């Protein structure tokens, strides 16, 4: 009996380990129409269809992809209040994230994003390619283009983020993709979303 109990639990554990293939069948199609994003923190109309993941990167955030996260990923974060991090803080003790302050300069927002993104995705190689003024949904903010790499990966990955503060709250849209082909393939559409998004 004892042995069987052990084996059953063992197999439970093993089953959990083995079947933990992405059990995230939660996808929703984003149509070419005005779309409520991040629980109503933003509204935008994409030029083509996307897929929305059921897992949220933040309380008022959401994640889209066209072909899978390896190939393109678009994250939205809205209504981040003073004292909150951009991504959901998963471990205060091991991986604390820096927090948004409403008095931050545009350059501080860029640094805030860099730290949040790098800590969230365990990235140690992050380099800013350019940082310049830009609007996010008509609100003055920053545009940062950066490159990063995953350990032992030969692929250069590129990201473009726009950040802006509206009514004391931070809004972020971030797009990442491999530099070979994928980044350019969707960047125009993504920039149009960043230009035209409506911040609530």
């Amino acid at each position, binding site marked *: 009996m004892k042995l069987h109990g052990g084996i059953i639990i063992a197999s439970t*554990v093993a089953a959990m380990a083995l079947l933990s293939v992405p059990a995230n069948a939660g996808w929703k199609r984003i149509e070419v129409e005005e779309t409520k994003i991040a629980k109503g923190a933003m509204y935008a109309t994409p030029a083509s269809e996307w897929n929305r993941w059921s897992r949220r990167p933040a309380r008022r955030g959401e994640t889209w992809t066209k072909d899978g996260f390896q190939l393109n990923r678009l994250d939205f974060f809205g209504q981040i209040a003073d004292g909150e991090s951009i991504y959901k803080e998963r471990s205060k003790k091991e991986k604390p994230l820096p927090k948004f302050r409403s008095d931050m300069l545009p*350059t501080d927002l860029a640094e805030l994003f860099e730290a949040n993104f790098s800590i969230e995705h365990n990235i140690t190689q992050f380099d800013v390619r350019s940082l310049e003024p830009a609007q996010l949904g008509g609100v003055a903010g920053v545009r940062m283009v950066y490159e990063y790499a995953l350990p*032992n990966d030969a692929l250069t990955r590129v990201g473009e983020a726009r950040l802006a503060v509206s009514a004391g709250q931070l809004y972020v849209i971030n797009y990442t993709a491999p530099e070979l082909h994928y980044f350019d393939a969707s960047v125009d559409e993504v920039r149009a979303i960043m230009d035209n998004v409506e911040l609530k």
Partner: protein
Amino acid sequence: MMGRAAFGAMLLAATVLGAPAASSAQEDRENFLLPPWTGAYEPENIDERGFWREWDELETRLKHSKYVVRDPALQAYVEDVLCEAVGNDRCTAARIYILRENSFNAWMAPNGTMGVHTGLLMRMRNEAELASVLGHEFGHFEKRHTLQGFKQQRRTSDIVMWAAILAGIDLTNIYTLTIFEYGREQEREADLVGARYLAVSPYPSRAAAEVWIRLIDEDDARAEERKRRKRNRHTRWLDSHPAPLERAGYLARAAEAAADEGDYRADRYSEVMEPYLLGFYEDQLQRNDFAASKFILEQLAGEYWRPIHWVMQGELHRKRGTPRDLVTAEESYRRAINEGTQRPEAWRGLGLALMRSGDRESGAEALTTYLEKVPDAPDTAMLEMMVRGAQK
């Protein structure tokens, strides 16, 4: 070479003068003399060949990895320190890769691939400390620990799986154990082999214990800030490494026994690191790890704060950005500038700290200086706009 000769003379002296303790002198000799180097070994059995193959594959990927810092000058320097640490006959067996990673780490694989994190280079205060860590890793290689470590690991993971089930241990531990960590015994052995390399090297053995003590203190600082329990004091059953405190203890005893003289080569080390230090430190600051970053800087600067250290302190405080931090940051950047720093980042930091504190005019002035020094910086467009905004 001087170091070796001096050590030989010292040993001789010990043998002559230490007549009453002849047997212990004999032991000392055995403890400290390095076994002759037999050349880089070829894998001998099934398991070893398997590992070599795996690591050869990994090394091929590493060669193209974006993660590797490709800087010939830095590369040559680290290679040179390894040779000084373990001797010219041994060091050619290793191929070093400097990896852009802010953590305090280095590793060595059975096929001779050695990884050195930029976070390690940033934290070392002198060549001797770097040599002690590289020697430790080389000790694993010479003792073929990766293989033993893996076998132990495999057994452990089977045992842990059953034990966890029966005892209700947090199951996440099973999956966080990594394959290429060594067992505790192997760590201890590598530490002691490393101590022997150091004893016959031009460096003082004391350096090794000093590294571990700083590792403990750094993590204590981090633990306090994050309000978590302090680690590194006691060796627990599942830990693969001896607790750093224990390590520092036996390494200090080994150093005392070796009683060797040596040169830390602190000046040469800071000279070589000077151009890289700020970049490595920025990677550390990105981890939102204020207390530990502050500790690292204080240990690095010691009693001799150079302009680069003031720039680093400015960055540290500016990035946290509380009103008091901004004052400290401003003072630090000014001090760096007054003491003749050539780093343009000092003016950038000063400008941003001033602006955030509300002194937009002085801030714009400092930023203008920065833009004159680095007209094609990645953030030029942003800063130009901030300057224009302040002048309105």
